[in-house]
């Protein structure tokens, strides 16, 4: 085999193995050597078909590797973040509350804009009647109430997260998260996690006693 051809072959294999590093470690352990073997076989075959076919094949192979890596990492991510975690109440409440607040406040702004005439701007006036004053006060009060609700929801969420992990303590309530009462569901989750850890632990055999 001429030196140039051997050099190209080594370079292609190196490029392929480098792209394989994009995959998760467990996937590489399972398939990397096998994939490289198949790649080398197919490369040999395509080199005989001419430079254009060879180039197209390399493009397809490397592109396929990148797309495959993205797909596998997406799968991994979806698996790690189970849908149950996203559908829990402490996560959903702040999201829904935030969305409601945003819709309400935007509605106020846009409804105000609809009645606004840019060319004939009335001079800014203070509320003239008690009713207008009352409306303004009610609006400010509602905004403050909404902000309070959102803050409460956020704190509640953080407390729930802190309780669940048992390690993460929100800084504004030191020591509370660890000592805080656990819900029944969290107790079961902790118990299961402990069991799983114990099952994973390999029992040590006493040396020379068997």
């Amino acid at each position, binding site marked *: 085999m001429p030196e140039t051809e051997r050099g190209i072959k080594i370079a292609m294999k190196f490029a392929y193995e480098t792209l394989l590093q994009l995959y998760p470690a467990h996937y590489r352990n399972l398939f990397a050597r096998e994939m490289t073997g*198949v790649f080398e076989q197919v490369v040999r075959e395509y080199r005989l078909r001419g430079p254009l076919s060879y180039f197209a094949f390399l493009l397809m192979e490397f592109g396929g590797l990148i797309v495959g890596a993205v797909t596998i990492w997406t799968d991994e991510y979806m698996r790690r973040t189970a849908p149950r975690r996203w559908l829990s109440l402490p996560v959903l409440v702040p999201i829904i509350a935030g969305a409601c607040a945003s819709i309400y406040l935007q509605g106020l702004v846009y409804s105000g804009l609809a009645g606004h005439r840019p060319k004939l701007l009335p001079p800014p006036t203070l509320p003239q009647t008690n009713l207008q004053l009352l409306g303004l006060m009610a609006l400010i009060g509602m905004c403050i109430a909404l902000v309070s609700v959102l803050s409460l929801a956020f704190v509640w969420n953080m407390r729930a997260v802190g309780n669940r992990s048992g390690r993460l303590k929100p800084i504004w309530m030191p020591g509370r998260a660890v000592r805080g009462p656990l819900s029944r569901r969290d107790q079961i989750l902790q118990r299961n996690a402990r069991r799983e850890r114990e099952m994973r632990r390999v029992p040590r055999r006493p040396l020379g006693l068997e």
Partner: protein
Amino acid sequence: MKADTTPLSEPVFLILLSLAQSPRHGYALLKDTEALSDGRVRLSTGTLYGALRRLLEDQWIERFETDDTSRDKQSYRLTPTGRKYLQIELARMNQLTRAAAACLKRREV
């Protein structure tokens, strides 16, 4: 992969079809899928092994130990579950073909 509801993708279908004949390793699968599709489907190794990983996870195929099995050359074969889902997919395609033929015939008349 839920074959009860979702149709199989073409590469997965071809891989299953290829393995339905006999156990094969990666390179043979590449060649066979190309032959089965008349050269239309050319899988890259990334696509092939991505599909194989999913099929292994769903236990539609399994690794098959042969005399020359090494880490570089691993054979795969269809499991009974994989065969069942392949038959479901074939039945779905048959039904579609029949419906399409009936529609065309009605239009001609």
